[in-house]
């Protein structure tokens, strides 16, 4: 790359900088920026790094709580779980890179989120991978799905962080823009959390890890653009992940953190060296001076612009106490990692970049990191809503063979077992996994304590499309319900908000509403938001994806003995439904799979009721005698009950159940009314379950009994009977059949 001789309006525009933003840059600098500075501003003020469109809304999310040690603003949130331990977690998207190169895009997404966690001093112990693709029958979507899953497996397995859960949803809406979100959780002593701050004038700044190449230059800017036909050409060099190097970085950084040398640390993620240096300085209220001539490089002839903007993976920036640099570098060398002093902390508040003696950029760090533009973009309620809301579902024809409908639903990719995915991920490393993938939430024990953690990721794009506010609420509620079913009290969330182009008022409205919904649900369920990620511009050729907020929920079990799974355990157990079923078919999987419709309103969610249902479920689990708990979500009650039957293969457990309710059988069986949980309990516990439900004012019906090798469901106007073997076959092979 060559440095252009002049900063023209064209060049400014190519950097995604508006004329107004450019004017601000001139005011900040008191002059025109040079090319390197223009590049630096363009990445730091990109949507991806500056959150310029979303900031005003995110500010309304609840972020405080008794157990919250660190909310949004650092690399990841930190939550106190007692016993001197804290959990550190966050979710991020890697949608755009994964579309360009699914394997490497997903792999580097995993690498990036893991760095965010160990940067804080925590050992990463779990990953979740919420994924969205187009229908797997389409060649391109298949290719993307295969590549993404293989990339996550390749990186996660090699780096040694188990992937204990996730999501896989397919829908036409993601065909031109898949979603690859990755959640990571780590654990750290409460008194040894590290922040990304550069303090102490004169302290050395150390560069650690992989050498810098031309990878991913303008990755952050790309994440701030939609795809069109020209995207292929503007493609930056694809970043390739090196999980081996990352593993060494984890171990070496955690080892450095045990000394008292470290002052601040940040990984080089989006916008690489630029972002890590100016954010550390800005947060520390200091300046940083770095010399690019000392930066280890993989390629020759790189100009300062390229070195500053490179997104080469597996690199970290450290500030250490003066006098400890030798000790720190020796430690990295022990792990065969490059470690070089590239600069020092200054007192002038500037990010000063030198190339040898020559100063190539000089910008106030705060201006880059904190004073980026903030937009109140116009919002407008989308017109399609009038149509979808008014859809009349009462005239919908009732399928004749409801048992076949149930099998079809169980075999549809969104409901079918995701084992073909998660069996490719190590999900047991660290000997913590008490509940493996395949139940409502994964449960990990916390070594050295009696505690456990439950993790779940949820988000329903269709609901959010049909009603963004309710969709936002429902995502939080379902995630919380999932960890509750595992026996855990919901603690806090992180999120990843995947939306279209925020410059379109309809998209901005969807965003604003969804965030408002999430905020309300988080307040009601007392699960603050510890951080997250916004991914805009998820569009191809002008068509946006369904607005898809994904929630990563963490719950705490005070006693790991309460860990519960969704599967029936014993003949003779009594099955209860907590919560209420209404005639709500809008936005359901049934409507889509059987009738090809994505209309109506999503199920109504009463947050007070939701909280009460969750409370009852937790209380009955803690009281003992509960064999299983499973929330009703995609596919409704019938699907949830069928899923409960799938115990270990060849040890089938059916049930004979009567579903009360006076409504269309399909609504009763497959409607997705919120706030419902199926529990099975020992026969001697039925009275106490009823009593607890009564105390919380939660509807609680006894459906019947576990036993036999068939699932029998009876109700007003229907009766269906399926062998558990048939259920298991439909559900167990659904995904692999879709992939054939």
């Amino acid at each position, binding site marked *: 790359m060559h440095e252009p001789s002049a900063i023209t309006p064209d060049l400014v525009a190519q950097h995604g900088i508006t004329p107004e933003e450019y004017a601000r840059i001139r005011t900040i600098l008191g002059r025109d920026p040079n090319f390197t500075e223009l590049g630096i501003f363009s990445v730091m003020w990109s949507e991806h790094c500056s959150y310029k469109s979303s900031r005003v809304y995110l500010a309304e999310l609840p972020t405080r709580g008794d157990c919250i040690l660190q909310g949004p603003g650092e690399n990841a949130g930190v939550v106190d779980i007692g016993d001197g331990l804290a959990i550190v977690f966050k979710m991020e998207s890697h949608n755009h890179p994964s579309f360009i190169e699914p394997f490497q895009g997903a792999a580097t997404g995993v690498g990036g989120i893991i760095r965010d966690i160990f940067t804080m001093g925590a050992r990463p112990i779990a990953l979740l991978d919420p994924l969205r693709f187009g229908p797997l029958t389409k060649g391109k979507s298949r290719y993307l799905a295969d590549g993404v899953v293989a990339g996550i497996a390749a990186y996660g397995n090699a780096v040694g962080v188990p992937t204990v859960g996730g999501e896989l949803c397919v829908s036409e809406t993601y065909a031109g823009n898949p979603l690859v979100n990755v959640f990571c959780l780590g654990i750290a002593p409460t008194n040894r959390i590290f922040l990304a701050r550069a303090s102490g004038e004169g302290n050395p700044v150390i560069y650690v890890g992989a050498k810098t*190449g031309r990878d991913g230059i303008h990755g952050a800017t790309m994440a701030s653009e939609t795809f069109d036909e020209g995207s292929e050409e503007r493609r930056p060099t*694809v970043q*390739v992940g090196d999980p*081996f*190097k990352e593993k060494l970085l984890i171990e070496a950084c955690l080892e450095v953190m045990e000394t008292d040398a470290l002052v601040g640390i940040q990984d080089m993620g989006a916008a690489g060296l630029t972002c890590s240096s100016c954010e550390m300085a800005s947060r520390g209220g200091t300046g940083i001076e770095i010399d690019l001539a000392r930066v280890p490089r993989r390629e020759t002839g790189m100009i300062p612009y390229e070195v500053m903007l490179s997104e080469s993976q597996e690199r970290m920036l450290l500030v250490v106490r003066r006098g400890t640099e030798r000790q720190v570098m020796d430690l990295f060398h022990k792990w065969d990692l490059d470690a070089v002093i590239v600069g020092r902390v200054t007192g002038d508040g500037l990010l000063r970049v030198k190339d040898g003696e020559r100063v190539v950029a000089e910008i106030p760090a705060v201006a880059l990191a904190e004073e980026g533009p903030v937009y109140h973009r116009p919002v407008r309620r989308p017109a399609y809503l009038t149509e979808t809301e008014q859809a009349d579902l009462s005239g919908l024809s009732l399928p004749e063979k409801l048992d076949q409908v149930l099998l079809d639903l169980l075999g549809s990719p969104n409901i079918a077992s995701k084992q073909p995915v998660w069996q490719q991920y190590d999900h047991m490393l660290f000997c913590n996994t008490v509940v493996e993938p395949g139940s409502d939430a994964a449960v990990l024990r916390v070594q050295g304590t009696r505690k456990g953690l439950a993790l779940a990721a949820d988000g329903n794009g269709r609901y959010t499309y049909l009603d963004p506010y309710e969709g936002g609420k429902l995502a939080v509620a379902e995630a919380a319900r999932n960890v509750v079913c595992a026996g855990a009290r919901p603690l806090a969330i992180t999120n990843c908000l995947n939306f279209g182009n925020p410059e379109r008022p309809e998209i901005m409205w969807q965003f604003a509403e969804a965030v408002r919904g999430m905020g309300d649900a988080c307040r009601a369920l007392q699960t603050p938001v510890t951080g997250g990620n916004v991914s805009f511009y998820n569009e191809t050729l002008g068509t946006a994806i369904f607005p898809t907020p994904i929630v990563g929920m963490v719950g705490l079990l005070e006693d790991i003995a309460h860990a519960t799974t969704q599967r029936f355990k014993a003949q003779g157990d009594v099955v209860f439904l907590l919560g209420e079923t209404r005639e709500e078919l809008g936005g359901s999987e049934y409507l889509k799979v059987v009738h090809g419709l994505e209309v109506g309103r999503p199920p109504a969610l009463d947050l007070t009721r939701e909280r009460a249902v969750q409370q009852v479920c937790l209380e009955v689990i803690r009281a003992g005698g509960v064999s299983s708990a499973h929330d009703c979500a995609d596919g409704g009650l019938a699907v949830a009950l069928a899923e409960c039957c799938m115990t270990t293969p060849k040890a089938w457990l059916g049930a004979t159940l009567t579903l009360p309710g006076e409504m269309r059988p399909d609504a009763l069986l497959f409607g997705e009314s919120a706030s419902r949980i199926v529990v099975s309990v020992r026969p001697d516990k039925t009275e106490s379950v009823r009593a607890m439900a009564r105390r919380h004012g939660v509807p609680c019906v006894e459906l019947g009994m576990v036993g036999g090798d068939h699932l029998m469901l009876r109700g007003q106007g229907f009766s269906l009977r399926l062998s558990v073997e048939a259920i298991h076959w439909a559900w167990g092979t659904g995904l692999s059949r879709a992939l054939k």
Partner: protein
Amino acid sequence: MLEAQIHVTLKKSVLDPQGDTVRSALATLGFPGVTDCRIGKFMLLRLAEQDPAKAKTQVDEMCRKLLANPVIEDYVFRITEVAG
């Protein structure tokens, strides 16, 4: 019988962590004189096609469609006559 010998390599600018690791392993093993190491794939395809010109078109298409990933890899190939 025709055989296609295909070499698929990472593009120059793309990081090759495997090659780098092997290079440093070789250095530790007493071969410090390896200044660069890149690792790619080598594929041997037996073809039913008898006409070398047609085979060439086919193999090129196979490479573009499946055997190489154009985003990060380059490929070259040769068609030769081998004993069946």
